[in-house]
């Protein structure tokens, strides 16, 4: 699929159309007159980006000096993978969304923000410059707010507010990180040219936190489980499938290969990754809403990807391979999680009744099993890629990771079973609605999940390897064990465990933050400023003084008018003058 025989001009057109086309349609949506036409084209907006990704990496990076302090647009290897699955997911979500929200009266607004976010997402993948990346990253983050609070319910507003606070903090951290990076690389902006010194702990911390917020890294993942359930299905599909990957891409872009191996940061990412992976599952199991469970599974999957990045950091010469592995894993997770979310959406929207057609279950279980890494699925390939990278990790960590990986697979399987089981007991009558579009798009996505990773030439897994007994067994036992444990838990807990409110409220860490906020309120730092601007004003001061002294001053004036006083002053004046003239030495 690497066809760089394509004419450069066409490539430049496609590349700039990637982020540009959705923007144009979004502006079209704003103008009432051509709103209908724009809406029709809305769901096809990601097409140019998809075509661009299919054309393969462009040799040249397009320099656009006048655009926002000089920015570069180009498509390199990782960019191509990311662009492909992102544009595919956006396309599917777009089509799905058109039917899903057909009845919604605020759909124009939704699609406006949808397109803005899409353009941001494509833009950040395509941009090869620090500033361009930051520009589209902010566009995507802020526009996503519109998607999250679409329904306008109280929880949506709360989730939106938390999301916005974290995004702003993330933006600021990234702003500082970019400043430091640009200074270190002597004013150079292109990714190819920037040097990120691993030794600069502040910079690395800023990068980790800045992109961690988007990628759901542990301390800052709070917004994810809150945002997904409230957002409409297509939005949460895209949110979870494509947008949190932006954080990952950020790490890859901003940490180019560096000879000096810094074990500390490698380990840091590894630990953070595994922590996220297990934490996501543990909290996910206690949730009652399917979409929240899927959100937590995204957190745990992102944790795994962080692990790959960590191992890449540990073994610098392996960095390119690690990048590819992460990109593949991201594609796999994106498509699978996207189809899961769409499946949940289809299940909830079309068949609210207890009885669900059999193919719906297949549609749900296929991506779930892929995520768990069942052999013959995209998950297996992705996991294989990951294992290859992990293999090079220096000794002390190698053993640990190879032990933890299967456990993760098991945990993921457990979480997904729990999640899908939550869909079954949905109450309410069976309403068959039209909206074939949703089915078609979902089906396309499922096909993509199943097939695409196989076709992707880049995957290094030889065909033979897939059927070798060892890898088959490695893939099978975690999934099987996970399923068994899930069934056992289901029997044991019975209805009780799942029905009542989640043991730990969604967005766990946010509750703590909120509580801290309440605590701070009474002595909030600017309490003691009091009424602002009261300050001592000169004019008021003199007024006060005058009013108090008025009587004395008037009397003083009266005294001065008496003739006796005048006489004395008259004489005193003469005497003092003479005294001063003769400077004290009286002649006589």
């Amino acid at each position, binding site marked *: 699929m690497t066809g760089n025989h394509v004419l450069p001009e066409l490539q430049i057109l496609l590349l700039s159309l990637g982020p540009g086309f959705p923007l144009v349609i979004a502006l079209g949506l704003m103008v009432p007159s051509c709103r209908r036409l724009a809406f029709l084209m809305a769901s096809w907006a990601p097409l140019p980006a998809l075509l661009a990704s299919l054309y393969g990496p462009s040799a040249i990076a397009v320099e656009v000096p006048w655009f926002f302090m000089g920015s570069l647009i180009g498509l390199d290897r990782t960019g191509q993978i990311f662009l492909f699955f992102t544009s595919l997911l956006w396309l599917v979500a777009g089509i799905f969304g058109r039917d899903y929200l057909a009845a919604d009266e605020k759909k124009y607004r939704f699609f406006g923000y949808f397109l803005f976010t899409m353009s941001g997402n494509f833009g950040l993948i395509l941009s090869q410059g620090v500033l361009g990346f930051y520009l589209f990253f902010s566009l995507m983050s802020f526009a996503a707010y519109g998607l999250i609070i679409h329904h306008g319910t109280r929880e949506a507003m709360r989730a939106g507010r938390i999301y916005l606070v974290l995004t702003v903090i993330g933006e600021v951290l990234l702003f500082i990180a970019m400043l430091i990076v640009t200074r270190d690389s002597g004013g150079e902006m292109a990714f190819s040219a920037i040097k990120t010194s691993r030794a600069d702990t502040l910079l690395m911390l800023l990068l980790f936190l800045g992109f961690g917020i988007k990628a759901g890294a542990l301390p800052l993942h709070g917004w994810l489980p809150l945002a997904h359930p409230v957002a409409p299905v297509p939005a949460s599909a895209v949110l979870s499938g494509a947008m949190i990957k932006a954080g990952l891409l950020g790490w890859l872009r901003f940490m180019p290969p560096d000879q000096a191996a810094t074990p500390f940061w490698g380990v840091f990412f590894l630990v953070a990754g595994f922590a996220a992976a297990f934490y996501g599952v543990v909290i996910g199991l206690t949730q009652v809403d399917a979409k929240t469970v899927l959100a937590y599974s995204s957190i745990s999957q992102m944790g795994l990807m962080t692990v790959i990045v960590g191992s890449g950091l540990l073994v610098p010469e392996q960095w390119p391979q690690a990048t590819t592995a992460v990109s593949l894993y991201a594609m796999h997770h994106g498509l699978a999680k996207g189809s899961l979310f769409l499946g949940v959406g289809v299940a909830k929207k079309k068949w609210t009744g207890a009885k669900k057609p059999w193919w719906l279950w297949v549609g749900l279980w296929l991506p779930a099993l892929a995520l768990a890494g069942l052999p013959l699925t995209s998950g297996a390939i992705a996991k294989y890629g990951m294992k290859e990278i992990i293999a090079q990790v220096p000794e002390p960590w190698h053993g640990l990771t190879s032990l933890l990986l299967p456990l993760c697979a098991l945990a993921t399987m457990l979480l997904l079973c729990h999640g899908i089981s939550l869909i079954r007991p949905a109450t309410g009558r069976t309403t068959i609605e039209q909206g074939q579009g949703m089915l078609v798009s979902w089906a396309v996505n499922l096909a993509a999940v199943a097939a695409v990773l196989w076709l992707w030439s880049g995957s290094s897994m030889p065909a033979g390897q897939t059927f070798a007994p060892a890898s088959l067994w490695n893939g099978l036992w975690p999934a099987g064990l996970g399923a068994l444990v899930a069934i056992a838990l289901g029997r044991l807990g019975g209805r009780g465990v799942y029905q009542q409110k989640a043991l730990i409220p969604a967005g766990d860490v946010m509750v703590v933050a909120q509580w801290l906020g309440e605590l701070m309120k009474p002595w909030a730092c600017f309490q003691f400023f009091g009424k602002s601007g009261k300050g001592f004003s000169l*004019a008021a001061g*003199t007024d006060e003084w*005058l009013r108090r002294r*008025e009587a004395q*001053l*008037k009397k003083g*004036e009266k005294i*001065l*008018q008496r003739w006796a006083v*005048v006489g004395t*002053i*008259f004489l005193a*004046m*003469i*005497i*003092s*003058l*003479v005294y*001063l*003239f*003769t*400077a004290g030495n*009286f*002649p*006589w």
Partner: protein
Amino acid sequence: MPDTAFWAVCLVVVPLFFALICFVRSDQAAVLGLLAAGLNALAALAMTVFFVRSGPLRYAIGGWQAPLGINFSIDGLSVLLVAMTAVTGLSVSMYARGYFSLRIGSAGEINRHGHQRAFFWPVWLLLWGALNGLFLSADLFNVYVTLEIIGLSAVVLTALSGKPAARLAAMRYLLVSLLGSCSYLFGVALLYRSYGILDMAALARLISPAPLMWASLALLTTGLLLKTALFPLHFWLPPAHANALAPVSAILSGLVVKASFYLMLRLWGDIFAQVLPFAAYVLLGVLGCGAVLWGAVQALLQKRLKMLIAYSTVAQLGYLFIALPLIRLDPGSSAWEAVILLIMSHACAKSAMFMAAGSIFLKAGHDRIDDLAGIKEVLPISSFAFVLAGVSLMGFPPSGGFVGKWLLLGVSLAGGEWWWGVMLVIGSLLAAGYVYRVASRLLVFKVTFFSRRQSIPPVMEWSAVLLALLALLLGLLAGYPLGLLEAGSPFPLHACREVMP
């Protein structure tokens, strides 16, 4: 034939001559008065032109030589002050013409106001002639005579308004000026006993420190302080200036007070400058600061507009006295220029302010500041004139006040005695205080403003505005008048050019 001396004599003779005619033909007094004012302005202009061409000049009237004869000494300072008097006098005369025609026309009390108008013009022209005489005269006794004429005519003008308060104020003013003149004469007598001559230029050369000289200077100075109403001796000025008729208070505050200060400037800045110890200047400077603070504070307390403006005169005079030590301190001539600029801009601004206040008084029927809200709707031009005059009193750029203040500040900082400069700045802030008090009342919008039905003739309003504008633009044009100063630096120690008629 006509050269500077001729015009100098005209400046004294024309006002006196027209004063007599106005007295005789009192019904055309206004027309004649204006004619005199015009001629006076022409003469002043001619004199300036000739002065620029031929430089400073001494002229003995009638050929009588120094000891007995009356000499005119025309130098930069006197030409400038005569020009100032001419300009201010012209606009006050135009204002007075409108003022009296309005008063007589409306009230119909032909007797009272007719009487006022009949007496106003002759006495005012007398005062004007005396002023010109004072600025031009070269010896101290001649100055005494002109000073006395000014004092008397000022008293008569103050008493003209006929209100009991005005009469009391006039009486007090007369007694004070009597006391001042007596002490001044005493000083002149002692000076004559010790040196035998009274001519200023000659005195400047002969002066040598002697006890008798010190006593005479002390008496001279105290007399003049009394007449200039410096801070502790200022009690007579506010009632006199506030209760007089509007044009009269403009004349009093603008010009009369300046005459005695001119003499102070001559004595302290010029004749006795070399021998006087600096401590004496500091005393005057301190009294000046007192005047600035006391005047401003009292002005802030006043309820009546004209009293406020009168106290502002006391404060502004304090400014001039602060400049005296700076003149002594300053090697160059910038302090001289600053003082003269301050005198001229204060004369124009204060007269404009009193004229505007007069129109406001006529329109509103009262001058209680707090009830003046919203007069801007009724009298836009006069309120604008008032604010404009206030601006130059405050020493805002580009007014003459600002340039004067700026120069004095420079001199005080250069001389190391920064407190005088800071006092000037504080003074201008306080000035801003009391001008704002009135301006905020004028600028507020209150639709219903009860006002007398008679409309103020435009000549009154426009003369005030033009004078205020002149004060404001004096800063920008400062170069030209002060250039005159260079041409004839006051009493250059080298001999003046003797001219025989």
